[in-house]
């Protein structure tokens, strides 16, 4: 398989890069732009916030994001209720002129985890309103099934809590979701801290990764962005290549047949 032809689709739109990247927490707008370009990502997450009129006018990161000319994925980050999430999604659709929405309904301010019940309810409402929903959810198979049943055509279980960089806390759950839902695009969202985490997710059969802090808060965001670009290619190829089975006991690679110095007496 050649990477050129290894496309994937999200709500019918084809993409080559398997990295969705956030636009927050970079040292500067210029570094953000450079890092996003280095990452190869084609999809950028954005948000809506109250701003003073002069900022709302556009002297901000937003102008840099627009210049990148990438597909935008607005989020409902910070919403704590179905009502808030649905209204913010509608505002995003008008503002960003896209029916894509990354649905976040926070259920707890300590681990910032999604509220499973409210997320399913909001997803159902948004799908009925014509949105293409990218739900941020936990690694719970049943909640993932409910979201799919509500009409989500992609699911985004977390690896670990937002901003912790702990990677895949529960590979068993993530693998179970993949096995039980073989046909829907699965993206690990939140918790990715290092490229090895992203490679592991794709080795498990996940289709993509959504991250922000791991690149934005690296000492060298642009270099880390490049690292993740390679990581996603590595993980995807590894999945397609079919890794060797893990073995309990050692077995030599070099042939044992013809080993010198051995002489039957």
């Amino acid at each position, binding site marked *: 398989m050649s990477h050129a032809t290894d496309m994937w689709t999200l709500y019918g739109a084809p993409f080559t890069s398997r990295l969705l990247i*956030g*636009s*927050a*927490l*970079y040292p500067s707008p210029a570094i*953000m732009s450079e890092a996003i370009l280095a990452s190869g990502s084609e999809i950028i*997450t*954005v*948000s*809506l*916030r*109250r*701003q003073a*009129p*002069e*900022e*709302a*006018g*556009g002297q*901000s*990161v*937003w102008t840099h*994001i627009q210049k990148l000319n990438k597909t935008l994925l*607005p*989020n409902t*980050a910070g919403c704590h209720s179905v*009502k*808030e999430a649905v*209204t*913010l999604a*509608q*505002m*995003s659709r*008008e*503002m*960003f002129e896209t029916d894509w929405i990354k649905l976040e309904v926070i259920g707890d301010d300590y681990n910032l985890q999604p509220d499973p019940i409210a997320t399913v309810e909001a997803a159902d409402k948004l799908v009925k309103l014509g949105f293409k929903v990218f739900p941020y959810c936990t690694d719970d198979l049943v909640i993932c099934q409910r979201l799919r049943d509500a009409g989500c055509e992609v699911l985004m279980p977390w690896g670990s809590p*937002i901003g912790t960089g702990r990677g895949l806390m529960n590979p068993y759950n993530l693998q179970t979701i993949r096995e039980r839902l073989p046909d829907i695009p699965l993206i690990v969202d939140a918790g990715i801290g290092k490229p090895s985490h992203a490679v592991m997710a794709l080795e498990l059969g996940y289709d993509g990764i959504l991250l*922000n*802090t791991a690149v934005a808060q690296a000492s060298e965001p642009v270099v880390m962005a490049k690292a993740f670009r390679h990581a996603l290619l590595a993980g995807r190829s590894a999945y397609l290549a079919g890794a060797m089975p893990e073995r309990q006991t050692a077995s030599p690679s070099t042939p044992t047949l013809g080993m010198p110095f051995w002489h039957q007496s």
Partner: protein
Amino acid sequence: MIEVRVNSELKQVDAGKSLAALLADWGFDSGKVAVAINEDFVPRSIYASTLLKAADRVDIVSPVQGG
């Protein structure tokens, strides 16, 4: 004059003015913001015909970075 909250700030506004006019008064470019009143979305297309009531909670947001 009635009192409303705009992005959580108290403001006195002329009850007869449309949302479109008020946004302009407040310095916002209608094309660069999205609006909700009392947590309900207000499409841009009806700004001109939308009037505020006393104690309305108005949210005016614009694009920022996100994760």
